[in-house]
């Protein structure tokens, strides 16, 4: 069983990242090839582990030979395993897409791949770890990755965006550290399951202060309103595949941390109401901002924030249907937004100002990329037969279950808004005369491959949603079953 | 804590507050950077008093020396004075 240890998800990318400069010295093309092999291997073992997971028996890995309350542990369960599988799969596709990105003006590939490996390790670490401080360390890795890669391109406003994000990220880490310190001093442990057991005895006032600190700190990472001023800047300034990795992997690990802390570690009354309100505000703010955007990337970024808000609302119901819908939305958001960002990478690269009105008539000159973008847009607004439809449908069902009818009205309204601004772009792509001075950069074969795989997944799940519903249900059960999580991490614990 | 340690602690706390004010309010950035270095120095003493020699050493090496120097390099590469 050595070969399928979850610790490889973190150890291997780190090892490769450390050694990558040396590989480059031996033989240059290795810089591009080795990460691909590693990502392929990780994707393979994550699928393997996930499909062979016995329900109710998550894989618990202890570090350095110390059982969970004392050492750090990794938990590969139905829920965390699902997210890890998603991340490794997307990481592999992002690699396929950017393998010879040099052809479209992307030098400095050694640093790019090193940073990408570290980010994958970091976001998988956030998802897998069973230790609250360890989670903070990995969140910090993903944060520094985003500061560095947001400022990757010169000559744009990238440094401003990165600096803005850096300030907010530092504040968020201060909040998280304060929360961890208070929590440690109350329960004397940092293990999440152990905290969950002992948290019942914390004074409620103290508990609510800890919860608010976590809420603010993790909310910044999960792109929650009003702490998400950095998102549109970061998404629009970063290179295409990097923006895709933000949406597909970073945002996922941020929201995972938020969910895990409030579902498993700390049970605080009222926090889900807060999450519902903030989620709704996030949706309203983001979708109406997206409508006013002139830049394609900024529009996509605001739309992405809106999706995150929808996911928060879904999780705030604290019901099984809600979690299921939230997981479906997370899956959709990861896959579809990655496709949208990857295809928009080539669209905006061919325009000078990256504005939406520069895209007139691209449907004729860049048929494949436009098709992919159109497909992504149809999927994200929730039209059948794409996977986005099922996500939205489940969301509506879950909302109806919780008797929140005004939320249903809001979701439908937002869907209309989404249709308006996405179709505006599609209209320009297909039904306008093209401008004269466009310099077309057609996608390379590997980019076509990456986008096609994503499109196949979107259509496949759209036509036959049972492909994933089974796994999502299992993940839902795992997340909802707090006692089961505690019991599997701390088997010797006698629950009084 | 013995009496002398308590006195040292209180003196350090006062110094920390004064240096903090200097760091935030000084218009000359080099002075402000030196004030942050003083914060680190006093903090390192405090850590020693609080029986955390490991942290004291880290703060000494990173806070006093390296952090300060990267600030000074940056100030040299940009502007020295904060305008109004």
């Amino acid at each position: 069983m050595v070969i399928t240890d979850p610790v490889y998800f973190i150890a291997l990318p780190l090892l490769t990242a450390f050694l990558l400069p040396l590989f480059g010295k031996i033989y240059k093309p290795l810089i591009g090839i080795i990460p691909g092999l590693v990502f392929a291997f990780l994707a393979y073992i994550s699928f393997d582990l996930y499909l062979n997971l016995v329900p109710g028996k998550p894989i618990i890995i202890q570090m350095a030979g110390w059982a969970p309350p004392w050492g750090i542990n990794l938990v590969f369960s139905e829920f965390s395993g699902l997210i890890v599988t998603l991340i490794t799969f997307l990481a592999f596709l992002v690699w396929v897409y950017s393998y010879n990105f040099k052809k479209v003006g992307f030098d400095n590939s050694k640093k790019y791949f090193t940073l990408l490996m570290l980010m994958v390790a970091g976001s998988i670490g956030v998802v897998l770890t069973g230790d609250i401080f360890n989670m903070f360390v990995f969140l910090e890795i993903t944060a520094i990755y985003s500061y560095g890669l947001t400022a990757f391109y010169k000559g744009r406003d990238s440094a401003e965006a990165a600096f803005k994000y850096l300030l907010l990220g530092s504040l968020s880490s201060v909040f998280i550290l304060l929360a961890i310190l208070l929590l440690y001093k109350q329960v004397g442990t940092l293990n999440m399951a152990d905290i969950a057991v002992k948290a019942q005895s914390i004074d409620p006032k103290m508990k609510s202060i800890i919860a608010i600190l976590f809420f603010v700190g993790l909310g910044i990472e999960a792109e929650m309103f009003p702490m998400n001023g950095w998102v549109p800047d970061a998404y629009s300034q970063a290179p295409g595949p990097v923006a895709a990795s933000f949406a597909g992997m970073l945002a996922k690990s941020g929201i995972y941390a938020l969910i895990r802390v409030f579902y498993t570690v700390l049970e605080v009354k009222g926090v889900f109401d807060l999450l519902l309100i903030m989620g709704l505000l996030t949706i309203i703010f983001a979708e109406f901002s997206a409508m006013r955007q002139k830049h394609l990337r900024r529009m996509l970024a605001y739309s992405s924030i809106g999706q995150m808000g929808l996911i928060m609302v879904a999780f705030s119901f604290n019901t099984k249907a809600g979690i299921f819908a939230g997981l479906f939305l997370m899956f959709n958001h990861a896959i579809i937004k990655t496709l949208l960002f990857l295809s928009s990478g080539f669209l905006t690269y061919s325009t000078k100002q990256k504005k939406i009105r520069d895209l007139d008539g691209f449907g004729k000159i860049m048929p494949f990329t436009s098709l992919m973008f159109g497909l992504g847009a149809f999927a994200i607004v929730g039209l059948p037969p794409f996977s986005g439809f099922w996500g939205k449908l489940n969301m509506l069902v879950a909302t109806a279950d919780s008797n929140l009818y005004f939320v249903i009205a809001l979701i439908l309204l937002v869907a209309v808004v989404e249709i308006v601004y996405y179709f505006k772009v599609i209209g320009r792509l297909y039904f306008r005369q093209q401008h004269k001075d466009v310099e077309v950069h057609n996608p390379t074969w590997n980019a076509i491959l990456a986008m096609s795989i994503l499109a196949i997944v979107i259509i496949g799940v759209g036509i036959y949603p049972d492909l994933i519903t089974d796994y999502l249900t299992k993940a839902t059960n795992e997340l909802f079953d707090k006692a089961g999580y505690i019991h599997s991490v701390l088997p010797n614990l006698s629950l009084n | 804590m013995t009496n002398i340690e308590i006195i040292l602690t209180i003196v350090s706390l006062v110094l920390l507050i004064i240096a903090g004010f200097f760091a935030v309010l000084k218009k000359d950035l080099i002075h402000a950077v030196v004030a942050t270095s003083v914060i680190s120095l006093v903090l390192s003493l405090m850590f020693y008093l609080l029986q955390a020699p490991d942290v004291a050493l880290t703060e000494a090496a990173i806070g006093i020396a390296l952090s300060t120097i990267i600030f000074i390099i940056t100030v040299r590469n940009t502007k020295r004075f904060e305008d109004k």
Partner: protein
Amino acid sequence: MKKVVVIGSLGVIVYYLLSAFVAIPFGADIIKGVKEFYLQKSPDDLKVANVVTSIVVNFRGFDTLGEVTVLFLASTALGSILYHRRSQHSGLNPQRTSVEASAIVQTGAKIIFPFTVILGAYIFIHGHLTPGGGFQGGAIIATGFLLMLISYRKFFIKHNALTWIEAIAGSTFVILGLFGLIYAKNHDFLENFLPAGKLNDLLSGGIIGIIYIAVGFKVGAEITGILDTLLTVKETGLDPEEN
């Protein structure tokens, strides 16, 4: 006006936080938790005298791997942020200081430099016995290099060497951890698989000492790289590439 609002709201937040923290009296030993276990197991099982070291490298060794990664990430990100194509500046060598430091500074730096490096090495080699360890030792070594960098205009760091040290030290950490999967008793990542030795001996603690030495090398190389990148930034004027 804005100032008053900001300070007022910050004051309220801090007041609440402070009230939460005051509930934990200073110096009181109120919690029983993992620390008892660490204080007992570190000298008994791991034979590591410095409990902070055994927590940093063994009990919570995974954090330290993340921490090393953060520094590595910071130095890589720094490189990519301040990166400029060499070809455009091929005419001029990167310049550091506009004036040469005085002879006294130069001689002083030359004398102090080896001692600084030895002190740093001492600190990370004795990380499991005395206060300090890889991070502190590495930082001190970097300070030594910094001294040379600012006093000699022509003292250039060999980037090749830095890359090699970083790569080898970093992979030593991970590979030692992976060896734990095969050779150690419980087959865990980062588990000690070497004999633990005797408490307070230099050769005690098994892989803990080795890992801290690797951390020391890696941190030293990374911080030196960060300083070097920041120092060789072109000094004045706007970068032609930026506009």
